[in-house]
């Protein structure tokens, strides 16, 4: 009796979650760029980042990913997938694990606590990236969600609230323009 490959049929729920995570990653990338150009809190955070640090956020195995680059105190979106041999990677072990933080059901620290996410690269760079992503998340998710997922509820200045409004209004266009990158 020879061996045979068991056909794999991925359930619709898996495909849906993967699509949601792909879009959420793209939204995060686009918002990261925008917020790094406008928000002082993030700009201060980026001050001591390594110049030209390339970092990726992705999902294992072979799941969606995006790559970003720090240049001159700002973030540049390099595109989907792993570009320019990233020095730092934050990886979710599977689509289900990525789905929880990207849909506001779990904070990023909880993802690490529950071994759902892991870090490839320098730990200090990873902590800084995580802190910066938390600032970006302030703009992506509603405060009512962040009150639950952050250790402490986020505070906004008036200027930040205006920027959050702007992020929501231009998000669709940003995603559309970068979808093919």
């Amino acid at each position, binding site marked *: 009796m020879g061996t045979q490959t068991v056909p794999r049929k991925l359930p619709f729920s898996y495909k849906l979650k993967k699509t949601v995570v792909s879009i959420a990653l793209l939204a995060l990338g686009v918002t990261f760029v925008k917020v790094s150009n406008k928000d002082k809190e993030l700009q201060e955070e980026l001050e001591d980042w390594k110049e030209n640090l390339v970092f990726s956020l992705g999902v294992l195995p072979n799941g969606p990913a995006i790559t970003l680059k720090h240049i001159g105190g700002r973030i540049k979106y390099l595109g989907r997938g792993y570009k320019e041999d990233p020095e730092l*990677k934050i990886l979710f072990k599977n689509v289900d694990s990525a789905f929880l933080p990207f849909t506001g059901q779990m904070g990023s*620290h*909880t993802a*690490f*606590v*529950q*071994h*759902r996410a*892991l*870090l*490839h*690269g*320098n*730990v*200090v760079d*990873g*902590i*800084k990236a*995580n*802190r910066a992503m938390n600032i970006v998340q302030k703009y992506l998710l509603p405060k009512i969600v962040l009150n639950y997922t*952050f*250790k*402490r509820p986020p505070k906004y200045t008036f200027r930040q609230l205006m920027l959050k409004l702007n992020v929501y209004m231009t998000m669709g266009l940003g995603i559309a323009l970068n979808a093919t990158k």
Partner: protein
Amino acid sequence: MIPEYYEFICPVKVLSGKKALANLSFEMEQLGAKRAMIVSDPGVAGAGLVKKVLEAFGESDCEAGVVYDQTPPDSGSKVVNEVAKQFLDNKCDCFIAVGGGSSIDTAKCANMIVVTGTSDLMQFQGVDRLDRPLKPFIVIPTTAGTGSEVTAAAVIYDEESHTKLAFTSNHLFPDVAILDPAMTETMPPKITAATGMDALTHAMEAYYCLAKNPVSDAYAIAAIRLIFKYLLQSVKKGKDLEARLAMLNASMLAGIAFSNSLVGVVHGIAHATGGVARVPHGVANSIYLPFGLENNFDKAGDVIAELVPIVGEKSTGDVKKDAELVVAAVRKLGQQLKEASGLPTTLKEAGVTEDQLEDIAKACINDGSCTINPEDITYEVALDIAKKAFG
């Protein structure tokens, strides 16, 4: 409360007891090894402890291919590469680390180099990047605190990039840990006290921080109980082998707990204080632990309060009062250790200057341990803890 999800692992075989070292060659043979490289440091070798390990080979076919006893306190990539070279040059087939955290981590990293064939460990930084098993690895701790004999992590200093490289992989677990009190009986009182408080910090932070789980809780509680019963005794009477063995066990149990549940702000700020002001890790942990506990009263006071009977106090029935009793018990132990060994209880006593506190706070918030701390650790919070601990 059961966590929504957790993982737990400890594949290390533990041998504990007087004359446990006599089983060394048997364990080597079980691992298919005959020619060991022994990794140690000058202090341990000078105290005659490496000689004890060599004598333990007895009449067996096992032997030491080479002994490296020059591991510095903060080992770096040059030492690790040299150890790996000597391992290969002398055709060794297993590592035996005899010492504290630095010797153990050096052996772990040299093992990575030997097996992967790389001289650049940078590529393995982070979590779960090793994809193959390492050479057999036996650890014989000569301090009771780091718990490195049962952990999957290693940290070394990289001379080229001037950064600390941290590695975590299940392949970094030693195969065997031999806990023999004869290997710690000559440890000086102050080091005994500091390393013991390091173990207490591992256990307590593993118990109340965010990655706690029922399995690691069991290890943490067992460790805390042993430390409160035996640490002062092992400081006051170094030759008391029962106390020494109990502390080796406490360190091992706390190591298993924190290897799985990780640690919090006390470790984060202790790492920072070590980097900025060269305060030994155990000393810094001992100073910060009461303040780290208090920092988490709001988010984890109920969990901290559960430790009341474990630290030998009687519950009042009030969560806040019980949590305060736990902190008071930790402070009392610290004070007793200070009287018995000179262990500092403030940063000022440990040689930290006030102008270093801001740098400590800045470094603290970039430490991975703060992610696991229940309370959010911002620069301001870290500075507040450092100021309180300054004294």
